[in-house]
Structures are given as structure tokens and as C-alpha cells.
């Protein structure tokens, strides 16, 4: 199993599937947070007009106060501004990594699910081998080959999530393939590719959307972890993991330097989980 499969499994458990049409409290909060995060990513100036890299050595290491809601860092940069502007980096990295993982997963999963037993067997063994590098290990292996940096870290996270996507998509394809409407299309003499494109893929897209939502939260956490370990984005970039990494030096005196960037990572991950599950539940009960 991969992290993603666990997430997907949790999202589809029956206990979550209370068929309500109303938005629950958790969903409302998650929706507001998602809106806040998207605005921070698209128009950070709107929420935090300052410059995230502007230094002000005279007001370094200020704890949270009226002028600096999240405090300031070692060069007097305003942490609230940096955290808001950092959303852009983290979301872009998360979305890009998810796109890579999902893209590879769709290709591998479709090959395995559609091209018969030999391909299925080969792809499955290949995935099994990739699963022997749990969690971040595959990403670390990739980074040791291609060197650290934002681009390699993003690709590394994407690659290490790909096997999970592939296996879920394969399972989904196999379920859809045996549905009555596919049988009907076959009986009507449609070609294999026509059936794949017009009937099977559209019916696997909806679950993919849920997966991607759940996956983005995971990808952001992993990318931030790599930055924290010094293998992704580097300080003074206003990326959340890099900010935490910079705050580590001053942990004894300035807790706020580590606390707030991390809080935003947690909020993003929780938002992704709650929204992913909410979408999943709604789709199942249409």
C-alpha cells in the first residue's frame, strides 16, 4: 500500500458516507480555508501587501504582536507576509508534483488495466518493486541521482506518488471495464480505443478528481519535508518547508519562526483531506 491508497481507502469507507446534502461544519471551514489559500496563491498582495523578502534588521526576532501578527524572523522579515506569499510556491509545487504522479499513474494504470494479462503482470511487478521504496525513499534515491533543488524535488515527489495512483487507477479501470454499458458498447461493435476513450476513461475521471485533491495535500507535505531537509527550495525563499528549516536554528528563542509556516502546511493538508472526502461522498450519492 502507499500513502495515497490509504487516503483513498479512508475516503471511501462507509462511515463517511452519510448522505447529507447540507455542508457540515468541517466542510464549511475547509471551503473557507481553500478560498483563503487560493487567494494567497493567486493574489498574495491582496492579503499581505508587504514584500516577503524585505529585511528590517532593527525589528528582528519579534514575537507575534500587533504590527507583525506572526512575528518576524532573523532579518526582521514579516512572517505573516512570508507565509502568505509562500502559499504560491507550496501550492504550485504540490499541484505540479500531483500532476506528474497522476500523469504517470494514468499511463501505467491504463496500460495495466487495458492491454491484457502480460502487460498487466509486468506493470504490476514493476509497481511492486517501486513499493519496496516506501514513502520518501524513492524521492531520496531520485535526488541523489539528479541533485537537490526545487525542480528535482517536485519531480521526485511526483515519481514517488505515481505507483499509488497507478494501482488505484488500474483497479478502477478493471471495475469500469466490466460494467454493463461497456458490454453494450462492445456488443454495438465499437473499437477497443473508442470504448476506452468514450466510455471507460470518462467514468474513471471523477474518482481521479478525488484522488488528486487528496494527493495535493500529501504532495505539499512531502515537498515541504524535502525543503526542510535542505534538498528542495532553499532559504530565504518564502517556501514553507524552507522557512521551517531556517527557523530550526533559532528554535530555542523564536518558536514562531517554525510554528506558523508549519501550521499552514497542516491547514492545507487538512483542507485537502476534508474537501477530497466531501467530493467523494457527493459523487457517490448523485
Amino acid at each position, binding site marked *: *500500500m*502507499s*500513502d495515497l*491508497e*490509504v487516503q483513498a*481507502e*479512508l475516503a471511501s*469507507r*462507509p*462511515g*463517511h458516507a452519510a448522505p447529507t446534502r447540507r455542508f457540515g461544519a*468541517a466542510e464549511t471551514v475547509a471551503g473557507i480555508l481553500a478560498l483563503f489559500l487560493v487567494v494567497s496563491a493567486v493574489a498574495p498582495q491582496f492579503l499581505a501587501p508587504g514584500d516577503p523578502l524585505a529585511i528590517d534588521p532593527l525589528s528582528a526576532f519579534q514575537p507575534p504582536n500587533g504590527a507583525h501578527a506572526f512575528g518576524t524572523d532573523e532579518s526582521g522579515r514579516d512572517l505573516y507576509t512570508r507565509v502568505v506569499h509562500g502559499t504560491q510556491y507550496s501550492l504550485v509545487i504540490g499541484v505540479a508534483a500531483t500532476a506528474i504522479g497522476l500523469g504517470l499513474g494514468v499511463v501505467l494504470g491504463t496500460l495495466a488495466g487495458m492491454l491484457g494479462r502480460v502487460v498487466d503482470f509486468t506493470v504490476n*511487478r*514493476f509497481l*511492486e*518493486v517501486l513499493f*519496496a*521504496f*516506501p*514513502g*520518501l*525513499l524513492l524521492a*531520496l*534515491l531520485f*535526488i*541523489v*541521482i539528479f*541533485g*537537490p533543488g526545487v525542480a528535482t524535488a517536485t519531480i521526485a515527489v511526483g515519481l514517488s506518488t505515481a505507483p499509488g495512483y497507478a494501482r488505484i487507477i488500474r483497479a478502477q479501470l478493471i471495475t469500469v471495464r466490466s460494467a454493463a454499458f461497456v458490454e453494450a458498447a462492445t456488443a454495438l461493435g465499437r473499437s477497443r480505443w473508442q470504448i476506452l476513450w468514450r466510455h471507460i476513461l470518462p467514468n474513471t475521471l471523477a474518482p481521479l478528481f478525488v484522488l488528486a485533491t487528496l494527493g495535493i*495535500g500529501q504532495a505539499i*507535505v512531502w515537498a*515541504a*519535508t524535502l525543503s*526542510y*531537509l*535542505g*534538498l528542495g527550495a532553499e532559504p530565504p525563499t518564502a517556501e514553507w*518547508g524552507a522557512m*521551517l528549516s531556517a*527557523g*530550526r536554528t533559532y*528554535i*530555542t528563542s523564536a*518558536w514562531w519562526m*517554525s*510554528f506558523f509556516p*508549519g*501550521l499552514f*502546511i*497542516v491547514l492545507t*493538508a*487538512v483542507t485537502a*483531506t*476534508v474537501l477530497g472526502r466531501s467530493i467523494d461522498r457527493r459523487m457517490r450519492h448523485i
Partner: protein
Amino acid sequence: MLGRIAARLAGAVFVLWAVASVTFCAVRLVPGDPAQAVLGGPGSQASPEALAVVRAEYGFDQPVLVQYFAQLGRLATGDLGQSYALNTAVGPLVLSQLGGTLLLAVLALALAWVFALALATWSTRGGKIASSVGSGLEIVAAALPHFWLATSLIVVFSIWLGVLPPISTDGVAGLVLPVLTLAVPLAGFLGQIMRESLLVALESPFVLSARARGESERGVRWIHALRHASLPAISLSGWAFGSLISGAVVVETIFARPGLGRTLLNAVTLRDVPVVIGVVMIVAVTYILMTLLTDIASRLVDPRLRLI
């Protein structure tokens, strides 16, 4: 059952061979001359003579296929090669680090199970509010990144309260924060899955029949329902173990604790390829063994599986 285990072992050998091959190809992909890497990277300006000596010593001058089979042969006899940076044998180095990480992972897994069980039993009994609080706690716990949880725990318990050491020492006190850091997010995942299956189990006919036999509520919950509810969590434990090892990279680095994770991160930073491969191989072996163990554990708990 024995046949199944044999099949799984054969599968494990295949996966190991493939892991070895993948890592061998990966090393070929590392840009630059490996002999240069042994002598301290491109900045070291090693003389051509020194490079030639290293090439001959490590076998870099042989054809690729010869190197491949030589490496497979060495791996089969347990020889993981020489570290570029430390100039020691990788096998003993990695093995000496394995114990610390395993201890961390096993303790964290056990603690996560305790948390998850407590949370699941409490939140399924306490009515609607307990159930919402429980599921909220689980979702947040599951989303906590290890590095943030670790720094937050250090701030609270080491700096503010001063009760636990921020750096992992030899004693039990030094283990508390690292284990807690690994256990809490995992408990979030295990708790969610356990609560859901506990709810399903409490509705099922075998619980009704146990109640009809006059069994106490405690007996029903702890003996019948929990046994059923722990099945999906047991099958998750293989995955959990993998994610614990991956989490150990972060936790061991933050708490300055010796172990596989920290060795791996140092090797990645120094691009010490043989050590990276050594750690990855050891992790793959332990991971495969762990999935085998969870498979056996599921069979012990679930009599239905023993029929297949």
C-alpha cells in the same frame, strides 16, 4: 499456508533482485565520473593516476554488464561495497544503524496502536460529540508533518517545560519525543480505519448474537468487535512500517539520533551512492519481511483467511 509463504518469499527474492537492478541503473545515471566522486567530487582536482587507481580498485573500468553481475554477486553474499565518503564497508555500517531505527519504528507502531485503540473505543461509545471530536482529531493528526510536530514537541517539552531532552540521549527519556513524533500521525490513520470498522462490527450479527448470549458490553466490545475491527488496521501495518522508516529520516535528523534515516540523509547530501543503495536495500528487505509478518498476523486474527 506454508505454500503461500514460500510463494511470497519467491516474490520477495524477485523484488530484491529488481531493486538491486534498479539501483544499479540509477548509479549509472549519476552524472559525472564515479571515480571522481570517490576522490571527493569534481572540486578535488584528482590526478589522472589517482583516478586510474580508483577505477581499477572499484572496477569502474570493466564493461557495464561485468560490473552488473559482479555487483549482484557481491550483494548475494551480503557485500554492499565501500562508502565513497567514509571509506568503510557499507554492510556493517548500515547494519549497525538498523537496530536504532527498528527500535524507534517498533515502539512508534506500538504506541500508535494504543492511541488508535483508545481513541476508537472512546469515540464510538461517547455519542455524537465524541464521534465528531474523535474524527476531527484523527484527521488533524494524520495531516501533521513529522518535522513540524517534532519541532513543536521540542519547543513545548524541552524549551518551555524543560522536562525532556531535545536531543536523543541513550536513556528512555531521549526516546519519548522521537517515538511520539512518529506515533501521533500514524495513530491518526490507524484510528480512522479502526473506528470505521468498529462501527461496522458493532452492527453485525455476530455482535448481536454475543449480546443475546448475555455477554457483557465490555466483553462484546473488547473480544468480539475489536478483533474484527483490528483486521484492516493490521493489514495497514505493513504500509505503516514503511512510512515510519521514511519518517525516521526526518525524526533522526531533528533529534540527532543515530540510525538508518540519518545515515541515508547524510549519504544523499554527500551523494555517497553505495551507502544510499545499502540503506535502500536494507529497508526493502525489512519492508518485505514486515508485509509478510502482517500477512501472517491477519491470518492468526481472522480465521476466515486460514481457509484460503
